[in-house]
């Protein structure tokens, strides 16, 4: 018994940084997710010519906390005919999958839970593949037609698009030659290129698949409120519902992080090897200073004293952090230097992830929703073949460079062209097919009519 305790102690002593990171993720991600919701509402409001939440806190800044409180104190409802156990289990499963998969994501060079794990990104993809269980089981346990249809749709969608995402990632893995997260980022530095430039097709297929995987518009069919009320979440309310909700946003962070790591250079600044762009290193400092200056500018215009005080406080905080960043860090001694590099990497990483998520939001407010058969057709008839062809083409390019010493960029350029050509063919074929499909649909409906009449 003693030895068991001892070994646990040793474990904690060895891994305390990682454990701290894990606790931090569990504690902070829900908060971040809440604020992503706020940002989303603000972005949506901006695109739709309105203000968004304004009441709770200055510019609605405390809205997520108010929402969370409201959800926590809501009545905990379980429908009578629901399967109690699974109804309880499903949202937990979704949330667990989302948070666990975050373990292998590296937010900057030193913030990562599972650091030495050599399957790296594969871990993220694999564990987040557990998410569909939460959805499908939740939909089934609710004992409601809308929920079941939502759950079935969702499962079908997730499975098909995970395949696409997997193949798209393979093209990146091939270029990196490793699955380890840090190694992937470092190879992008040594290759002098983010992989979005070397494998653009891979990136775009991953982009689309990642939107579909997180059930975001235009692929938000499982929870299409105009058709299925709220899909698999119809019977959920209060805290359980918020678990699903958080899982969705946590998943957004995960897929955006994976995309960023593999295709957008992770925590590297743009053009990491070009020295005259070195001033970009001052990016975090500059940005913080700018935010601070803006707050000072706005502080005078606030209608209430509290609000202007708040603005001053934010400005002060920004300036202090900017000063630490800009002045102290480069001259600090090694541990400080280490932390500086970590924060600096995290800045670029989070900036890219934010841009990625912003793109999600932008698409959501611009595009109508797909129909289920169209979604499936897009997935199986276009994206999966395209991703497969892309994998083959990237391998060919790699073989050309390593075996025949062809210039890497040249090889990539031609194979990308080939992939795009294949994509055009696929699209044309699909158009023909979909025309035929809708024709059969109409023919079918006339049959249905006749049988109904007869």
């Amino acid at each position, binding site marked *: 018994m003693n030895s068991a305790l001892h070994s646990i102690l040793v474990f904690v002593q060895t891994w305390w940084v990682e454990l701290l990171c894990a606790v931090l993720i569990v504690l902070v991600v829900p908060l971040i997710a809440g604020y992503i919701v706020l940002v989303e509402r603000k972005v*949506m409001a901006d*695109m*739709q*010519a*309105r203000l968004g939440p304004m009441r709770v806190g200055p510019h609605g800044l405390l809205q997520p906390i108010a929402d969370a409180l409201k959800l926590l104190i809501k009545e905990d409802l379980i429908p009578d005919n629901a399967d109690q156990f699974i109804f309880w289990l499903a949202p937990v499963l979704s949330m667990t999958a989302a948070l666990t998969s975050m373990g292998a994501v590296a937010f900057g060079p030193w913030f990562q839970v599972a650091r030495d794990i050599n399957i790296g990104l594969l871990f993220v993809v694999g564990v987040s593949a557990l998410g569909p269980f939460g959805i499908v089981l939740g939909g089934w346990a609710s004992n409601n*037609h*809308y929920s079941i*249809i939502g759950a079935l749709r969702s499962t079908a969608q997730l499975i098909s698009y995970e395949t696409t995402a997997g193949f798209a990632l393979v093209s990146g893995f091939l270029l990196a030659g490793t699955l380890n997260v840090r190694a992937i980022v470092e190879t992008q530095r040594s290759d002098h290129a983010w992989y979005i430039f070397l494998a653009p097709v891979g990136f775009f297929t991953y982009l689309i698949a990642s939107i579909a995987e997180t059930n975001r*518009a*235009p692929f*938000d*069919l499982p929870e*299409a*409120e*105009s*058709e*299925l*009320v709220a899909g698999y979440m119809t019977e959920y309310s209060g805290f359980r519902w918020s678990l699903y909700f958080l899982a969705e946003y946590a998943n957004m962070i995960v897929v955006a992080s994976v995309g960023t790591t593999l295709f957008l250079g992770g925590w590297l600044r743009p053009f990491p090897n070009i020295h005259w762009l070195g001033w970009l290193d001052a990016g975090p400092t500059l940005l913080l200073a700018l935010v601070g200056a803006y707050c000072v500018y706005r502080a005078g215009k606030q209608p209430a004293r509290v609000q202007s005080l708040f603005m001053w406080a934010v400005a002060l905080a920004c300036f202090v952090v900017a000063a630490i960043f800009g002045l102290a860090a480069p001259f600090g001694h090694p541990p400080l230097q280490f932390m500086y590099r970590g924060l600096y990497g995290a800045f670029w990483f989070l900036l890219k992830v934010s841009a990625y998520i912003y793109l999600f939001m932008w698409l*959501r*407010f*611009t*595009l*109508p*929703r*797909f*129909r*289920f*058969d*169209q979604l499936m057709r897009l997935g199986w008839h276009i994206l999966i073949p395209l991703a497969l062809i892309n994998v083959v083409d990237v391998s060919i390019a790699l073989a050309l460079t390593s075996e025949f010493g062809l210039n890497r960029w040249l090889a990539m350029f031609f194979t990308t062209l080939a992939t795009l050509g294949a994509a055009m063919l696929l699209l044309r074929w699909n158009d023909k097919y979909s025309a035929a499909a*809708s024709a059969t*649909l*109409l023919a*079918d*409906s*006339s049959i*249905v*009519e006749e049988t*109904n009449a007869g």
Partner: protein
Amino acid sequence: MADTIHENAAQKSDTLFGADELVINMGPQHPSTHGVLRVKLKLDGERVVGSECVIGYLHRGVEKIAENRTYQQFAPYVDRMDYVSAVSNGLGYCETVEKLLVVEAPPRARVIRTILTELQRIASHLLWLGTHALDIGALTPLFYCMREREEILKIFEKYCGARLTTHAFRIGGLQYEAYDTLEKDVERFCEDFERRIQQYSDLLTGNSIWIGRTRNVGILNSADCIALGASGPVLRASGVKWDVRKAMPYAAYDQYEFEIPVGTRGDTYDRYMVRLEEMRQSRLICLQAIENIPAGPIMARVGKVLKPPVGEVYHAIEAPKGILGYYIVSDGSVQPYRVRIRPPSFINLQALDKMIRGHLVTDVVAIIGTLDIVLGEVDR
């Protein structure tokens, strides 16, 4: 041998899935039935094989009320039928009673009526466009549409003090003279609106997801339209170039030039295009109308107590949703003997079953949206 295997497989699949028909209830409280419509859908998988509408949740007995009110007292009630185009309802009612009385509203009143009614048509179509786009999953057009609709409602508010159920017209003409800047307001709105309508078009018209969701969805050909009595944009989208405003002009429509947009396939996309173009045409009518509003009285000389001579009259106008007809029988007393309202939504909704057969549940939502029904009018 191979054949028998095939047959077995076919039979098996029949017993497994074919016999498994699912009946789901859409509504009456469903986010995209636009009110309290309930549709019972018989599904084979996600495919609709049959449907039944259950309506009447909002039935208030408007026609019965009419028999117990005087002609003037009943006028505000019609606003509550199609509550998103109250002005059109009022126009139809007032003109019908005027026909019954054999009076005519003075030219100035007719022109102002036309302007307001066309603005109402735009407002109604805007609301339709926003909610229809929302049903199909596009969130943003709704807010743009509401923004423009707000401008129209402001004009109504300035004119008669009410925004939604306006009761803008009176039997015999108008109660209120046009306010000073009416022309300017309408002109400013129309100038803006050209650009704005382009905005919606940019968001939706060429969008391949939008086209995918609406093309060949809910096709209703012209023969079916006429047989089922569907009217308005639904009829025009199926290729019938017919509009009450042209066929049997009322108010001041005979003075203005405008086109009747028609579709070719009668699908949801065509209906969208037709309504979009109708908004443009309405804008043109408004612009023509404000150029020259004749001077003169705004009220024909009708008494305080209306006692139409014995008889009956049927009069129909082109409401935003379709033919809005009033059939009024007078027994010579101050109260109508019978008021029958032909509600366009009610009759258009009949076509739903034909339109959704063979489509997916998702399309049902799009098709309910494209019919542009208002349950207040369906149930009356």
